[in-house]
């Protein structure tokens, strides 16, 4: 019994042990399962998170702050950081005929009423065109570049079909200022004409378009130049005008104007004849403004050593042609007098003494035989005298006519660079529209000796002080310069009444900083110009008014007690001091 009990007890104990073991095993398995599931869950969570991060989370971060502020097209500023062209999200006026649902009248009022209201807001809009568009039932732009206040007025009309999408467009805050320099951007976003075309790759490059491009233009000087040129053009009834202000030491173009101009903000109307740049693209025979270049070449070559030597001033007969002066200046003139009175005859004689090869060499050193060096895409090719023989040597008559600016046609920009070389100590530098770091001014090439340049500074100052340029003599600015009134060539010779009046100047003459060129195309004699059409009466006064306006802005302080010393030359002038 006991044994039985004991065995039964053992058996029970065994069974119990077995079941405990069984249970423990199950628990362990369950635990392993739980842990495994936990790990799988964690792994899955990590994977899901990774997928989420990889796929979705990155999306909003991709548009970073810098990228959000990156303009679609880079900004162009002037030398002082004033924006001249920028990408600007401006409002447009879009007609959406489906705004009130399909079918039915797209407008609340009649198209005529709406068009009339729109013409009241935009006085330059075409009423008939608006009515046609509103009646057509097709979506179209009624107007681009709408000002916020205009948009508010249109909104107040209560027409849901008139929408104002904001679009990134090219905007020129200064309007038509420096339009010929900047150019414009068309509807497709492509730059044309000026720096918009030149800088296209740079302005669109994502790596570079964030930083604005600084031009050498000073918007204040540009405004003054355009303003005074316009005034001069209107006063003399001229067909067009061109002007340039050039830094003589760095070749930076501080202002460049060609009038009449265009409004780059109206890209739809921008492409027309006015886009033409008279400063860099049109070549003119610039006449007497070439005389100082000839004289400088002669002084430089040692042909003119004594300025008191007198030359006969009677008309010259060369190769069947006669060289005249505008007036009779007496029997003889010396070189300073010839410049002051602008004598073709004496300049021609000096050029004849100098000889064709040397004059040609000087002109070539001043790059008069190639397109002007500037970044603008439109650059005119000069009409360069080809010469009479195979080697291209100039004959006597060609040398003589070139000496006073005839038979050679260059752009006003060529002339500006040449004058910069005349006054800055004799170094020719290419003109540039980019702001130049003072530490990296191009070396340039020497054309004249420094002593020649000093002499020319005196002579140019004398022309303004005593000669034809008197109306450009802005008090205290020590302006020096030369007038040039050239007849334009027409059918069968020169046209007596169509002139190109130019005044090429530099200031201050005791230490030249800027060259200023003002040119009028076909000025007429008017009451404002005392009935005269020559440069002394129309182009010189423009320079006389521009210089006081831009001088202080560009750091040239007027000073009546300073001037270039011309005391050694003044006794040589017949009607000046001394004689």
């Amino acid at each position: 019994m006991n044994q039985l009990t004991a065995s039964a007890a053992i058996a029970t104990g065994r069974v119990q042990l077995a079941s405990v073991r069984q249970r423990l095993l199950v628990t362990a398995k369950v635990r392993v399962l739980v842990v495994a599931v936990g790990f799988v869950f964690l792994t899955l969570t990590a994977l899901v998170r990774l997928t989420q991060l990889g796929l979705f989370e990155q999306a909003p971060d991709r548009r970073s702050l810098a990228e959000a502020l990156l303009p679609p097209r880079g900004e162009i500023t002037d030398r002082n950081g004033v924006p001249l062209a920028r990408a600007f999200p401006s409002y447009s006026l879009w007609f959406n005929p489906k705004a009130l649902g399909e079918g039915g009248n797209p407008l609340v009022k009649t198209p005529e009423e709406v068009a009339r209201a729109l013409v009241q807001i935009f006085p330059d809009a075409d009423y008939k065109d608006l009515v046609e568009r509103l009646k057509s039932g097709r979506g179209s732009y009624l107007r681009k570049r709408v000002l916020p206040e205009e948009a508010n007025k249109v909104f107040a009309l209560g027409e849901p079909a008139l929408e104002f999408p904001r679009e990134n467009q090219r905007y020129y805050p200064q309007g038509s200022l420096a339009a010929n320099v900047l150019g414009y951007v068309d509807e497709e976003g492509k730059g044309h004409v000026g720096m918009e075309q030149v800088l296209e790759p740079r302005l669109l490059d994502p790596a570079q378009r964030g930083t604005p491009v600084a031009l050498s233009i000073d918007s204040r000087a540009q405004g003054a130049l355009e303003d005074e040129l316009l005034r001069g053009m209107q006063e003399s009834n001229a067909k067009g005008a061109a002007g340039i202000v050039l830094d003589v030491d760095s070749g930076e173009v501080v202002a460049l104007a060609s009038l009449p101009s265009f409004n780059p903000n109206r890209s739809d109307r921008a492409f027309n004849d006015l886009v033409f740049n008279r400063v860099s693209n049109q070549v003119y025979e610039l006449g007497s403004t070439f005389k100082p270049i000839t004289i400088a070449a002669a002084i430089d070559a040692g042909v003119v050593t004594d300025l008191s030597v007198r030359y006969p001033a009677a008309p010259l007969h060369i190769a069947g042609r006669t060289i005249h002066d505008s007036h009779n200046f007496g029997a003889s003139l010396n070189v300073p007098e010839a410049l002051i009175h602008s004598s073709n005859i004496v300049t021609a004689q000096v050029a004849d003494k100098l000889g064709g090869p040397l004059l040609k060499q000087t002109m070539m050193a001043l790059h008069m035989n190639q397109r002007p060096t500037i970044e603008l895409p439109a650059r005119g090719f000069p009409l360069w005298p080809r010469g009479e023989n195979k080697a291209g040597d100039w004959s006597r008559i060609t040398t003589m006519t070139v000496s006073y600016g005839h038979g050679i046609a260059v752009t006003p920009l060529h002339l500006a660079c040449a004058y910069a070389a005349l006054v800055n100590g004799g170094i020719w530098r290419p003109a540039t529209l980019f702001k130049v770091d003072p530490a990296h001014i191009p070396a340039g090439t020497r054309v004249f000796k420094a002593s020649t340049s000093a002499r020319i500074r005196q002579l140019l100052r004398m022309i303004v002080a005593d000669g034809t340029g008197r109306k450009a003599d802005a008090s205290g600015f020590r302006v020096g310069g030369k007038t040039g009134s050239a007849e334009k060539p027409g059918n069968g010779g020169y046209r007596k009444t169509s002139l190109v009046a130019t005044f090429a100047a530099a200031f201050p003459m005791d230490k030249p900083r800027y060259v200023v060129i003002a040119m009028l195309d076909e000025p007429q004699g008017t009451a404002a110009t005392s009935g005269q059409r020559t440069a002394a009466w129309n182009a010189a006064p423009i320079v006389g008014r521009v210089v006081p306006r831009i001088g202080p802005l560009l750091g040239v302080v007027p000073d009546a007690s300073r001037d270039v010393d011309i005391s050694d030359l003044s006794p040589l002038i017949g009607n000046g001091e001394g004689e």
Partner: protein
Amino acid sequence: MILSAQRLRSIGWLALLAVCGALVMILSFRVNALRSQVHRAEGQIVALKQQKMYLETEFETRANQQQLKAWNDLEFGYVAPVAGQYLENERQLAVLSKPAEPDAPAPIRVATVDDSVIAAAAFPALSGSNAAVRPLSETHEAEHADDDGGAGKPRSRALDHAAATATLAEKLGTLHAAGARQADAADEKREKHGKPIAKRTATVDKAKSTASREGGAQTKAVGKSARSDSKSAAKSGREAKPAVKTAQKTIHGDRKTGVKTSR
């Protein structure tokens, strides 16, 4: 009991896991909240910058060069400043005290102290001790004054200075024996030349009397040059310039000679 302890332990682990999970979640929520805040702030910055650009552009448009010109023509009428409105340096300031034209009456002064004497005596002392720091331009001007001033002018200036120093010495009770002696020697030398000295003394006397009234070294020079140029004095404008130049040269000439004497 063993089981419950184990279960407790496992419950404990689970609770810890849950707490950790909750903490991680809270943390990630906070991180996300902060991130979206940063995002919103960035959005605001972008919007504000664009608004700023918008307003700036509007301002530039309304205040563009052509518009400003139109307003100026209509409303303000400002013109560019002229030469007379600028003063670049002390010399230009001094030029303002010159008479309007050569024979203009002297400006009325109330003080009677002969400050030209003090000025003449003070300058050499200053420039003598600080000769090394004298500006280059000044030296240059002084040299030029010697170059084109002719032989007579600098000497007469030396005479002025000697007289001035002597007067000052009297007033201050100090002795500038060496300087005075040098000046005397120079005078004796010049007297041998005869004629010019008489004229010069007269000039100096007259200049002195003018100076005592007007109290400025440059006034003397203006007086002098006015007389010498009396023939061409009728010519205006350009003729006024040499007078000014001489005035400036005289100032510097005085200083230069002053340096010599004080040494």
